[in-house]
């Protein structure tokens, strides 16, 4: 009996030695990147693991985007079963912070990452900040953009000498441009995912910002003339359908199909669809020249909705992260965020200025063209009720789906939305 015990102890000691000799840290990673960007992220993780063999290993799991992801994170972190690092939308940070499920990214952490406030655009840094503290490391910013069919715009005389669209600024000009395009034999001026009001929120919110309007001021939803500004914004999008420039009730894949098949000359969508068009063009299946630019100025100044993918460290209940583990996690984040140039092929604009300023990125098209919009971005209001897949998006889905397809008056829809938002407690 004693013999067995001794052997077991010896074996345990050897095993322990083996572990400490290797000192390999395993970093458990969760993300929600299931599309074309997910493929790229898997490649980046593989590359990282190869470069750090024997030191750090990322064990990555991809989960379902949206409410399922955030529910799982909330519940698992609460019982200490969360990952070591996870992707997070900047817009969801306020709720996470209110629930104490994220660790602060401290000054020491930023030093270890070799990054700081100056490394990012103001809007991006602000988006990961709550009450002066940062809770995530931004990887990118992913606004919506205007995709265009260059051949059709050129035929309508809408391409300037610099090769970019011209004459699209202003509500009337934009409509006139779509009319010219349609008069030239194209079925639709524009296609966008208007079957879902929550998706349309991104466009409408951009137009609200273009009038200096805000969803939330001092904890009040749509106070003062913000409600009228939001109505104006909804009306612009609704008129595209009412006036016959855009097809009503277009679903996400249908909207893309209308653009790629040449039935619509322009398309509003997130930058994450850039790879779709790049790949089609590379295979020679697109059949026209395409580009993507910042949303036109419909009101007073340029402004575009955006959100950021960022890396957050969950505050796993009852589990303190060892300094070695934390160093490994920061190394992982640093390694991935610094590969922004490769990440940019997914369409997202890398968060690091050093990447977007580089000559390589400036040579990437259409990415470099639309990346100028980072100076004019607006993020979700900082509220526990806002952010992707939040109650605010659900209110937008209910109010705007009917409004942008001409079933409900814009003012009524906005009033309905305000009522629902005011009901949130």
């Amino acid at each position, binding site marked *: 009996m004693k013999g067995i015990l001794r052997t077991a102890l010896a074996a345990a000691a050897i095993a322990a030695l083996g572990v400490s000799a290797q000192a390999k840290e395993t970093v458990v990673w969760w993300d929600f990147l299931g599309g074309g960007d997910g493929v790229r992220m898997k490649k980046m993780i593989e590359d990282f693991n190869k470069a750090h063999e024997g030191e750090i290993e990322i064990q990555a799991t991809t989960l379902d985007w949206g409410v399922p992801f955030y529910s799982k994170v909330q519940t698992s972190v609460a019982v200490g079963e969360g990952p070591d690092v996870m992707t997070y939308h900047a817009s969801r940070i306020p709720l996470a912070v209110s629930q104490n499920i994220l660790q602060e990214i401290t000054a020491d952490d930023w030093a270890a990452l070799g990054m700081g406030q100056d490394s990012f655009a103001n809007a991006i840094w602000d988006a990961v900040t709550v009450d002066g503290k940062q809770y995530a490391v931004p990887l990118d910013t992913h606004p919506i953009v205007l995709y265009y069919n260059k051949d059709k715009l050129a035929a309508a005389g809408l391409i300037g000498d610099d090769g970019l669209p011209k004459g699209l600024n202003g509500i009337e000009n934009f409509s006139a441009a779509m009319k010219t395009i349609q008069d030239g034999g194209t079925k639709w001026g524009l296609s966008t995912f208007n079957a879902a009001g929550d998706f349309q929120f991104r466009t409408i919110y951009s137009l609200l910002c273009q009038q200096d309007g805000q969803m939330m001021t001092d904890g009040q939803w749509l106070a003062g003339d913000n409600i009228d500004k939001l109505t104006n914004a909804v009306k612009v999008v609704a008129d595209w359908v009412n006036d016959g420039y855009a*097809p009503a*009730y277009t679903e996400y894949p249908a909207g893309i199909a*209308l653009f790629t098949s040449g039935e619509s000359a322009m398309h509003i969508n997130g930058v994450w669809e850039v790879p779709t068009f790049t790949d089609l063009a590379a295979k020679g299946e697109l059949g026209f020249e395409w580009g993507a630019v910042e949303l036109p100025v419909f009101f007073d100044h340029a402004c575009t909705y955006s959100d950021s993918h960022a890396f957050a460290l969950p505050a796993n209940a009852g589990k303190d992260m060892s300094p070695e583990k934390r160093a490994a996690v920061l190394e992982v984040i640093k390694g991935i965020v610094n590969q922004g140039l490769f990440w940019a092929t997914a369409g997202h604009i890398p968060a690091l200025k050093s990447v977007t300023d580089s000559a390589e990125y400036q040579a990437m098209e259409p990415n470099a063209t639309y990346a100028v919009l980072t100076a004019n971005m607006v993020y979700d209001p900082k509220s526990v009720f806002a952010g992707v897949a939040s109650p605010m998006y*659900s209110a937008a889905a*209910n109010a705007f*789906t009917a409004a942008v*397809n001409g079933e409900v008056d814009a003012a009524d829809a906005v009033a309905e939305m305000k009522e629902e938002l005011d009901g949130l407690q």
Partner: protein
Amino acid sequence: MLKSRRNEILVAMVLIAPFVAVYGWLFIYPTIQMVRLSFTNAPLIGAGDWIGIDNYVRLFTDRIFKTAVWNTLYFVILTVIPGTAVALVIALMVSRLRGWLQAIVLAAFFLPFILPVTVVYLIWWWVFDPQFGIAQYIIEPIVGQPVSVWRRPDWFLPMAALVTVWWTNGFSILLFLAGLRNISSEIYEAAALDGASRWQRFRRITWPLIWPVTALCLTIQLILQLKIFDQVYLFSLGGRTNTTMVLVQYIYEQAFVHNKGGYGATIAVALFVIVVAVSVLQYQALRARGAR
């Protein structure tokens, strides 16, 4: 004698103990916790403060809750009896076929049942797509324009019911077919000799003898459709959920989207009460029908 009786009870206790333990742990305990949670303002994670019956007071003034109750009952009306009737008709037709032809036709009707809900959703999403869907070739001539059925509250539930009947009918058809095979052909032969018409044979022989199966189908469908969630949730994503909401979806929405675990539990308790009430009603109705 007494001793052996006591022994029997003891043995019985020991034998059912594992079930009782698991049932208590997995069903009774969570149910009690759910009721307790409904009296708190708990978020999705962690405990909340006891707020008495505030959640229940809110429930009675909640417009969306009322919509959800009505929509759930409407969905039950749209699916349970029509679905069972369609299954009976199909089973009657399939039972007239013989051999491999019957096997193929039966498989065709049963196939949708084995599909996961996400596949069903994607198929019908494209079928009804306003730009590219094939169903629009039927809808457009009748209505005059393509209809986005998943975004129009008046179209939503009837179409979701249609998809559900298409999807789940295979199971009811199988049950009916088994029931029909159990009816001895001698009864039909005797009736035919007596000059009973085809309708009389159905009315006087098939219908009474198939009734237990019909009652079973109705009960299974009722319980299933009161708990409707998947299809309605998927088809309404990004749309006008407040007008197409069903009860389980509202539980999910409150607990997981709005981060209100306590209120979500309150709606769950309400659904529990509704299911119990409807089940009792249906049981009584079916018993009355069976006794006649």
